[in-house]
């Protein structure tokens, strides 16, 4: 499995925790509009959980500008996410 796929899987687990919903399936095309409760508060929880999981430092302003999950995964990979 290449890094991006592993990161996507771990990101999906984070979403399961933050939204308390095991049914959520993430793909590269997923956007904020696809998940009902994805608001600014949950966004912050996701960012902090990613920092903890992947041992990286994220800039919330940058993250908020991504248009889909693909951009997020690629960004984490570029930061040398620990997986």
């Amino acid at each position, binding site marked *: 499995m290449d890094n991006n796929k592993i990161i996507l899987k771990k990101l999906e687990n984070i979403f399961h*925790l933050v*939204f308390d919903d095991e049914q959520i399936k993430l793909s590269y095309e997923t956007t904020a509009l696809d998940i009902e409760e994805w608001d600014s508060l949950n966004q*912050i929880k996701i960012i902090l959980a990613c920092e903890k999981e992947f041992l990286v430092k994220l800039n919330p302003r940058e993250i908020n500008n991504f248009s889909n999950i693909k951009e997020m995964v690629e960004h984490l990979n570029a930061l040398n996410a620990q997986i």
Partner: protein
Amino acid sequence: MNNKENLKKLNFFLKEPAFLDLEVNLAMQMAKRLKKNKKLLKNKFSKIKLSILSNFNIDFIVEAINFCLYQRGIDAEITAPSYGTMFTELLNSKSNTYKNKPNYILIWPSHKDIQKYNYNPKAEVSFWHSLWSNSKKNNIKIFQILFDKPPYIHFNNPTNIKNNFISHINQTNIQLEKKYSDEVSFIPIDQLQINIGSKNWHDARMYNICKQPFSLEAIPEISQFISSYLAGNLGKNKKVLILDLDNTIWGGEIGDLGTEGIILGKETSDGEGFTNFQEYIKELHKTGIILCVCSKNDEVIAKEVFKMHADMKIKLKDISCFVANFKDKASNITYIKNFLNIGYDSIVFVDDSKIECEWVRKKLPDVTTINLTGDPSGFAKKIDRLGLFLKGPQTKEDKKRINSYKTLKKIEQIKSSSNSLKDFLKSLEPKLFIEDRIPYAAERIEQLLYKTNQFKLNNTIFEKSTIKENQKNILALRFIDKLNDYGIVVVVLYDIKKEVLHIKNWVMSCRVFSRNIEFAVLDILNKIAKKKSCKKITLEFTKSSKNGPAETAIKNLGFNPTKKTSLYELYTNNKIYKHFITFQNLEKVIKNG
């Protein structure tokens, strides 16, 4: 995972007393799950409306507080106004906060909200006092968290008082508590700030991202701390600590090692650990917590340690109920529960054995069970951080309560040798003193109305201010016998209209059940009713999951249901009630009432 499994997991975590040790994302997940599924759980908890006011973002912590309060048996509907509106919401009598009609308001300022006034604490205190007037007018109970300290070490210079922010905060906190502890319940945040540590308490990055001053990691511990204070004030503080003996308050098994062989005392590090734990328990006991023993040991051998071991800090006289036998612990805890006449949810049980804890958790899920393992030097803190025993401001009455439970023990011993129960109760020479200094006793009266569950007709309660205003319509009775002064144990709120004496509420402390006091109370009410030419006495009764004893009593007293479902009535009469209780101060109260 289907919904049934989800609820099972939720219930598991609801029963976990150490919410503060959960990984934060799991803790927040469970908090979210509770919010979604509260209605499905069908628990008949006390429902309250709480409004939390702060100038920083509390959206995350509100969910966690909701969870922690629920763990303590409180179903809270929590509202928080828009970010940054703490002052306007409090000062505007028509704000959404007041329109919402909460029962409780929690004011949560940070050091950033200090007004300073050139470091004049008197002016500072006066400002914060002015924020409470609307709540007081609406009879809303106020909690306020005292001010925290900023993270800098440079502004605490004791020789330069003019530019001393820290000193100003300290003085403001001290003066607030000194002047206004009878109006507002203050929550001291120092120990919490110390336990959390500056890194977590002052998370500048978190504040910049989302205006929450503390880190996400700190949420479980902060919410458990605050919820413990709120729960304690609402009467949900735990009242009893049941102790295992071997490897819990001393090292080793007494049955094997004998009094000389157990590990306790300053000579060894474990011995020191157990000694410190006993000292902590003793301090808890001094604040009013009832201590009991539940041990799998021979009773004589177990008691020997208390009598003979020089390093025992806990004495036999500190133990209200000593149970040592080879029955299962759940049965023994049930025995203790019945002996003390309390609910399972008032009990904390500690044991070093995982199996014993699992058994009790399974059989008695409402008991808070804590498994103490490993190094005994950590035991005290492990229990302390959970905040289970925190309660509202302590009154003289609380100290009397421990003594009256020890007296119950004496009664049990005497009972077995007396010929009949009636003779025995008569021999104690019971008296009821009718309290006429109601304002003096207002705090105790308010406490009884809030905290009583079993003998309580309905949920009508009076705040201290209402108590003072309605003195003439309140009956407060103090119970005294040869063995003890039990303090005020009965409160009746009533009014008289059109020849009817109507009981708005009647509460009686469980420590005086089975003393026939309800007959004496009815006797007094009959006398008042006759003086005021009332033809009947009515009362309002609402059934709850806990007030079975009240329901039984009103039926035994002869109250009959009426066409209105919750209203019961009894025609005044000349009946003589055989309760052997004499009255003191009755004529004075009837004359003036």
